[in-house]
């Protein structure tokens, strides 16, 4: 479903964030993206979302070259992907409920669907009682969970979670992992960029390791680590 062919990314200020990455992800995969701080994990997910364009190489999603999408195709691409951003990116002027509902509204979801799915998603991440609060009134972990609810609410084809447990206690983290596994079992491809070595080691899923922008490891049933 996803193919990276010799992808390099150099940011405007000259930082080489990715160097010649080639990688394939099939539908239904559950993939851990690991690597030290600044390795290029977030950059990789930005290329998939077309938030950034690759400097070299091709990123293919569902058979289409992401860099060559027409401008009206970009929103359609993004709606197929649910993302938990490392910095949450909640809309500050919307309540938790409205933030989650927004992902459905964007895709033209009907009022019934919104009324049904939003509370479901909030329930799943344990935020049912905070739905009327604004992001600035939430704790770090609660904001993160609001972001997770938003990412899963419209049942995306691909779920990208960037450091989703960074602000969660171990118990909540594991609940989230079970949730992601459940979602994965229902057919959603999951990419999880993470530093949580305990989770990676326990799950024995596919692990792709980046270091300094280079892919240093790709193991089917791997453990946490990135050489060096």
């Amino acid at each position, binding site marked *: 479903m996803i193919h990276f062919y010799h992808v390099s990314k150099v940011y405007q200020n000259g930082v080489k964030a990715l160097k010649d990455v080639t990688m394939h992800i099939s539908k239904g995969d559950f993939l851990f993206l690991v690597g030290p701080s600044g390795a290029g994990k977030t950059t990789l997910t930005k290329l998939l*979302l077309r*938030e950034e364009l690759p400097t070299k190489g091709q990123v293919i999603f569902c058979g289409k070259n992401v860099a060559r999408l027409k*401008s*009206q195709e970009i*929103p*359609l*691409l*993004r*709606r197929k*992907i649910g*993302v938990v951003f490392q910095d949450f*990116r*909640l*809309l*500050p*002027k919307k309540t938790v409920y409205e933030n989650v509902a*927004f*992902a459905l*509204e*964007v*895709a*033209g*979801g*009907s*009022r019934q669907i919104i009324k049904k799915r939003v509370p479901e998603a909030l329930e799943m991440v344990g935020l049912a009682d905070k739905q009327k609060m604004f992001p600035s009134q939430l704790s770090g972990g609660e904001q993160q969970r609001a972001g997770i609810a*938003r990412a899963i609410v419209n049942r995306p084809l691909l779920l990208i979670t960037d450091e989703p447990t960074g602000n969660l206690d171990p118990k909540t983290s594991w609940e989230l992992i079970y949730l992601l596994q459940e979602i994965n079992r229902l057919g959603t491809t999951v990419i999880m960029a993470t530093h949580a070595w305990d989770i990676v080691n326990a799950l024995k899923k596919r692990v792709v390791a980046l270091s300094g922008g280079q892919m240093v490891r790709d193991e089917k049933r791997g453990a946490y680590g990135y050489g060096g």
Partner: protein
Amino acid sequence: MAMGVNTLAYFFKETARSLFRNTWLSLAATGTITVSLLILGASLLLVINTNRIALDLEQKLEIRVFLVPNLASNQVKQLEKRIYLVPGVARVSFVSKEKAMEDLRRGLGERKDILAGIKKNPLPDAFQVKMARSEQIANAAAQISSLPGVEQVRYGQGTVEKLLLVTRWMRIAGIIIIGALILAALFLISSIIRLSVFARRQEISIMKVLGATNWFIRTPFLLEGVTLGFLGSFVAVVILYFSYWSFVQQVSMFVPFVPLVADQRLLFNLFGGLVGLGLLVGMVGSFFSVRKYLKV
């Protein structure tokens, strides 16, 4: 763009929410639109009224055509017709020398004893000519003076030219001022709208990355712009309306001889135009401001 009922409902809900949750931004934008259009509208009224007063003065201008003595009455008729044919002439009326003496006497007031010693009326017969287009007065006077039977032509040479120069200048200045003020209003309104969108650029980029189409993001901003434009210009027009009418009343009470525009139709168009301008700038301003941040 195909648009469901849900999306439409979303747009209105969204616009209302944004207006209320960004109270401060909404107030600043409305206030700026109001102030800009107030200044513009007041200046328009000023210019229109100055023009009106100038026109009033101009319409009081006339040419006095003195006739050769003892002209036959059919010659006088003939001359009257010919004067009518001169470009710019609106109305011609005959003033007999008896009527002229009468006028002179009245004009001298209490010093009319001066005329006591005069036996024979030394004044000539004359035509009094009103112009349709006052700028042509000098030309018309020249043409009339060359007609047969005309002895002399008088129209306040000098003073009239001065008056016409001043009124023409005022008209040009008025157009320049209004043009500059329209530009100024556009700048002020679009600045405040751009700044209020700027304050929310982060939100726009988040929406973009969540898969919202440009139109989906833009429409609530456009509706917001239209609403602010309407509110702002409506307030401006209401203020203008009431202050102008009380002004007109004051003037008609204290300086009744100054002719002010009180034509409901014209004022209606003017005020309607202001509201339209407010709406338009609000919408177009939002459109372009948002566009800047849509390129994510």
